[in-house]
């Protein structure tokens, strides 16, 4: 990439100054407070605060539900992206635009709407509960909320790569005698794989920290349907700042690891498809 030489364009000092000062004041110093507060603890104390049975149960729910939701999103997100790119159907532009709804709809609104749908006497709940499918006020409700939040991440990372896919490759495979299924399995899916993995990781990372949409539908029963972010709030409300901060440290470290993974994956996608990661 051609770069401009420094000093030709004005404003380097000003723009970098604003950026660094604002970043430091708003993000870096406050975030460092979490680690500084935790560093005042002995390791035994930290371990006790972050691995008590109730906390462990919340990790299992948060990460398990996030994993399941992201996997379901990958399956249906891939199908939706395929439909949007490869087929025409009525109201396609409207469907395409509404895929981003979970990005734009406040999480609390999503939470109460999903509860209205899946509660015992709700829109779908009244038909599902007699069948033994209890969704709201339990772990399945958490998965449903996280699915809603994560879907656009998968669709929006797979869709552009699918649009740019070289049709010639598929045609070449076809002339060489490959069946349609063989083409999809050995030409299309491998090309899409980095994008699928990126979408999955984005959806998973978002789900792990999600709070607003989950707490209305989860029921929030300790040991059963209490997510880790809620547990942090519960500790805060009991004025247990140390306990809240210790759990937050664990979550932050995992989030940062996921952020690094996402950056790596996006670079990989960019190399594989020759696009700029956006």
């Amino acid at each position, binding site marked *: 990439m051609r770069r401009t030489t420094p000093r030709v364009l004005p404003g380097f000092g000003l723009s970098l100054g604003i950026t660094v000062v*604002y970043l430091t004041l708003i993000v870096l110093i406050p975030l460092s407070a979490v680690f500084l507060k935790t560093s005042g603890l002995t390791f035994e104390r930290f371990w006790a605060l972050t691995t008590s049975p109730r906390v462990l149960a919340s990790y299992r729910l948060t990460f398990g539900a996030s994993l399941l939701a992201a996997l379901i999103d990958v399956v249906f997100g891939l199908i939706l992206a395929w439909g949007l790119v490869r087929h025409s159907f009525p109201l396609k532009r409207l469907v395409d635009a509404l895929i981003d709804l979970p*990005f*734009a709809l406040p999480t609390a609104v999503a939470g109460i709407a999903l509860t209205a749908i899946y509660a015992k006497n709700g829109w779908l709940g009244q038909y599902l509960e007699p069948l033994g499918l209890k969704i709201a006020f339990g772990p399945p409700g958490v998965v449903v909320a996280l699915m809603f939040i994560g879907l656009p991440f998968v669709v929006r990372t797979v869709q552009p790569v699918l649009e*740019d896919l070289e049709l010639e490759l598929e045609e070449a495979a076809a002339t060489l005698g490959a069946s349609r299924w063989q*083409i999809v399995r050995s030409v299309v899916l491998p090309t899409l794989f980095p994008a699928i993995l990126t979408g999955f990781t984005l959806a998973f990372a978002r789900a792990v920290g999600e709070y607003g949409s989950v707490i209305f539908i989860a029921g929030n029963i300790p040991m059963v349907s209490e997510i880790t972010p809620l547990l942090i709030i519960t500790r805060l409300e009991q004025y247990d700042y140390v306990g809240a901060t210790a759990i937050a440290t664990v979550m932050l470290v995992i989030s940062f690891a996921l952020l690094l993974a996402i950056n790596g994956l996006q670079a990989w996608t960019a190399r594989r498809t020759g696009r700029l990661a956006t």
Partner: protein
Amino acid sequence: MTAARNRTPFEQRAATRDPPWIKALVLGVGLSFFVVFLLLPLIAVFVEALRRGLDVYFAALVEPDAQAAIRLTLLVASIAVPLNVVFGIAAAWAVTRFRFRGKQLLVTMIDLPFSVSPVIAGLIYVLVFGAQGWFGPWLQANDIKVIFAVPGIVLATIFVTFPFVARELIPLMEAQGADEEEAALVLGASGWQMFWRVTLPNIKWGLLYGVILCNARAMGEFGAVSVVSGHVRGQTNTMPLHVEILYNEYQFAAAFAVASLLALLALVTLAIKTFIGWRTTDERPEPNP
């Protein structure tokens, strides 16, 4: 993207055409999922809001606590969004127009707030400004309230909406390059003239895109604001928090009425976003490889 549109449509190319039953399956499964998991919640908001009739709906919106919540939400967004716009433009300018050490690190750090749970975004300001926090005793001595007051809500909102504008502008300005700006300078424009007449017009759609997404999140943020707000009705309740309070008091119609305003905001945001997307697919240059 332009290349994709100029090609022969998929339907006419035998090798890439799905058989009809596959097409039916893909669209059937995909669209059913779309309707049940995306469309139904949206519809539910409006139906539940109007369940008790228009009188109850409007009563819930004009009630003083709701009005206070709406005013606070607008106030918070009107502070957080402009600050993040200034930061976003500055960051994009520094990152895309100059070479310096640690640039990649800086870009990664700008994205940090997206990977932090909203709850932790609230917690960090409690640790800094709360009663037991770093500046807590000093703030108390000077009778300044940050946590459980409006400044804390503004700070938490700035944090969660921090990367929106910057991450929209960085790829756009990277792709555009600096040729036009250099030309303006060569022709004798001052730095600010170049910025107002060349840079800003070039990035206006990307900037608007970032602003509306930033604004939607700023008005709708729940988790981070919930931690620092203190939930004082009529004083430190934003619209999403007001929705929660009404909902927990079993005033479902009122809760959904306020929620429907936020859902409308989301729909307007998506409409503008889609419009910008259509406008810029033709104008936006292909990214430099």
